């Protein structure tokens, strides 16, 4: 049996309400902005970034796994906001987590699905027998341009998964699948601060096509149907798309409920579906099946069919749940504070 032996997630304590952003640009909070239905999103502190978020999530995952960090053979971090343009996030995180030097480290990048890519590869190494444990993290401190619809949703957070085998597995991975095409729906050129997107093109031909194709294929590959699953997580760029994808695939909103974090978290990009999975694992009972299908612009989707084992419940309390972090100590920011934290002010030089 191969799968997750430890999971963890982290959100910063800062929030900004979508109403606060809307007021900044003279818009009502209902109707116009694409983020309708979202209440607030997470904002990283000025001293936080993808690396620091990955370290927190990684620590939680290692606590739940209960293993010596030096037994981890690979660390992969997927993000679209790696702090350096050239220098891996993974080396800092590997040192901070005490993984030792005998570890394979790589940064992944594929818009919002870089996190599930890291998971895909980490799992493969363990399955191939190359190593006993591999750690995959999806984390982002996503940026939205001022006055752009993405500003309502782009947020910060991350989730980490230690993959392993045998008795330690708390959530088995039964099947994986991936689809890809060159669909330019959302991109950022070198040197540009903010991404650009192709408006409504990001919907049907991009998000929906890949998620639905990947989901349909993995259901067939694994011999399952929508009814086989107690939980499903689809990438959450806003609160409408995942519910619409669910409907197309025959999943009910109730099946999405445990991992449906976007309304109070925003879109954590490479952290989105991984964090949805972490939230599900905070609650899933032994034997429950989980479907995770991510989406990354450019485009592609990674799919996972997972099943919680009896070991899951016992490992949970070793780290804080994502729900406890989302509901716990929160600091609301004004737009001015938010702009300062997100570096939207420019100084000379």
């Amino acid at each position, binding site marked *: 049996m191969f799968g997750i032996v430890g999971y963890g997630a982290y959100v*910063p*304590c*800062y929030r900004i309400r979508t109403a606060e952003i809307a007021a900044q640009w003279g818009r009502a909070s209902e109707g116009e902005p694409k983020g309708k239905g979202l209440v607030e999103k997470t904002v990283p*502190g*000025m*001293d*936080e*970034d993808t*690396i*620091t978020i990955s*370290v*927190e999530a990684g620590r939680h995952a290692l606590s739940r796994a209960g293993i010596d960090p030096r037994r981890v053979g690979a660390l992969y971090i997927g993000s679209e906001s790696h*702090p*350096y343009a050239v220098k891996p996030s993974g080396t*800092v995180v590997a*040192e*901070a987590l*005490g993984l030792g030097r005998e570890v394979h480290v790589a940064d992944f990048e594929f818009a919002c699905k870089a996190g599930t890519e890291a998971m895909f590869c980490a799992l493969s190494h363990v399955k191939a027998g190359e190593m006993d444990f591999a750690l995959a993290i999806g984390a982002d401190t996503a940026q939205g341009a001022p006055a752009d619809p993405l500003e309502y949703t782009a947020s910060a957070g991350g989730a980490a998964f230690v993959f392993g085998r045998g008795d330690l597995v708390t959530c088995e991975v039964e099947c994986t699948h991936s689809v890809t095409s060159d669909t330019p729906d959302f991109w950022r050129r070198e040197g540009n601060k903010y991404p650009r997107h192709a408006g409504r093109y990001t919907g049907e031909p991009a998000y929906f096509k890949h998620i639905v194709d990947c989901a349909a294929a993995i259901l067939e590959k694994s011999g399952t149907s929508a009814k086989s699953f107690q939980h499903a997580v689809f990438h959450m760029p806003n609160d409408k798309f995942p519910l619409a994808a669910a409907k197309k695939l025959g999943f009910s909103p109730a099946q999405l409920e445990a991992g449906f974090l976007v309304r109070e978290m925003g879109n954590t990009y490479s952290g989105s579906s991984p964090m949805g999975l972490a939230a599900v694992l905070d609650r899933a009972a032994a034997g429950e099946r989980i479907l995770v299908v991510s989406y990354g612009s450019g485009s592609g989707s990674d799919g996972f069919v997972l099943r919680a084992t009896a070991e899951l419940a016992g490992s949970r309390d070793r*780290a*804080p749940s994502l729900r*406890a*972090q989302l509901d*716990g*100590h929160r*600091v609301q920011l004004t737009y001015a504070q938010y702009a*300062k934290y997100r570096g939207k*002010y420019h*100084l000379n*030089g």
Partner: protein
Amino acid sequence: MSAPRYAREIPQRYRFEAARCRQCRKISFPPRAVCAGCGSESSEPASLSDHGKIVTWTVVRVAPTPFALQAPYVVAIVELDDGVRVTAQIADAHGEELDFGTPVRRVLRRVRAEDDGGIIEYGYKFVLARLT
């Protein structure tokens, strides 16, 4: 900061690696060649506790240039559970939340990142111990 200087200190900045004197058991952070307690030159690796309590603190409002945009920020002396004291920022705090003895736990954060394109300096800070 210079890259070699930064890299040398990674074991302390990222992992709180310290040393314990083999003779008098005093913990030194950072590790020292000569024990401050008994003068012995023989020590073994030790790691510090991640949890501690506030000894005293301030809110820095006039900051040196590399920290200018972060001001105001809280800096404190924290006494760790193993008795060692360190100076560090208290992240995600403004000062009113703190009191003598407030429990805190260690996190990794960006400490400095100058706009000139130099390396990003990560290091330990503390946050109020709410969840763990």
